[in-house]
């Protein structure tokens, strides 16, 4: 089955972020196709490379980056939600004059528009949402 995943909550505060990761991993292991994973609302924080959780805890951002590398996953962070919350890529850093090195979108994630969310609703057999 062709699935898409929408994540609406940030890491650590809400289990939604963990459950979404576990679900996505399990779906891929079962041989399902994951068309795209979209991060919205506070979910955009899952894509910050600056998170530094304690070493004896899971690293949610890193888990996603590794899963993306392994399965060529398309991880998309909503640009409007990301800009509000300070998640920027190189292009946005430059455009808003935030200073060199300020880009913090994590490896394997890309920033794009809400059109990507609508498209995955259209293209997928199921859109599965993780939020509160």
């Amino acid at each position, binding site marked *: 089955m062709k699935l898409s995943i929408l994540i609406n909550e940030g890491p650590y505060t809400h289990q939604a972020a963990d459950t979404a990761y576990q679900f996505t991993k399990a779906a891929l292991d079962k041989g399902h196709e994951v068309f795209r994973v979209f991060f919205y609302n506070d979910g955009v924080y899952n894509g910050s490379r600056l998170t530094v959780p304690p070493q004896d805890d899971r690293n949610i951002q890193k888990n996603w980056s590794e899963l993306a590398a392994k399965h060529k996953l398309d991880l998309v962070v909503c640009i*409007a939600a990301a800009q509000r919350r300070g998640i920027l890529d190189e292009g946005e850093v430059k455009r808003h004059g935030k200073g060199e090195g300020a880009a913090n979108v994590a490896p394997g994630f890309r920033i794009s528009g*809400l*059109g990507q969310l609508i498209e995955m*609703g259209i293209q997928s057999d199921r859109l599965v*949402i993780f939020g509160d």
Partner: protein
Amino acid sequence: MAEAAKSGAAPAPAKAKKKFLYVNRKAPYGTIYALESLEVVLIAAAFEQEVSLAFLDDGVFQLSKGQDTAGIGMKCFAPTYRALGDFGVTKLYVEKEALSERGLTVEDLQQVTYEDENDGFKAKPSIVLIDRAALAKVMAEQDVILSF
């Protein structure tokens, strides 16, 4: 606008339209869900899918009339609901039970209308009062449900 510049994928290829329902459950202020749900709806309208909205739980407050956010320093986005008709979004389902549980009637909601292009562009009400059981049926008919 950042959104326009990076809105990503072009509208979907010619293909059967899907039915999208946006379920709004939260009060308009206090959390950002209502505003960011509305932002998705406005983008969704460009994709020529069949889009409708449902308001239940505290989400019914999103349509309450006379909203004034001056005291809390937030943008008042209530007028945007009245523009949805121009985006082809003409069905706003409001759950009857959610209204009555909160001591509200349809009179407490702002008027939202759309111009019916099949009826001489007459202004028609967009808000559809619907009971919980009927709303469940509407949900069952959807292809994609986004809940905020």
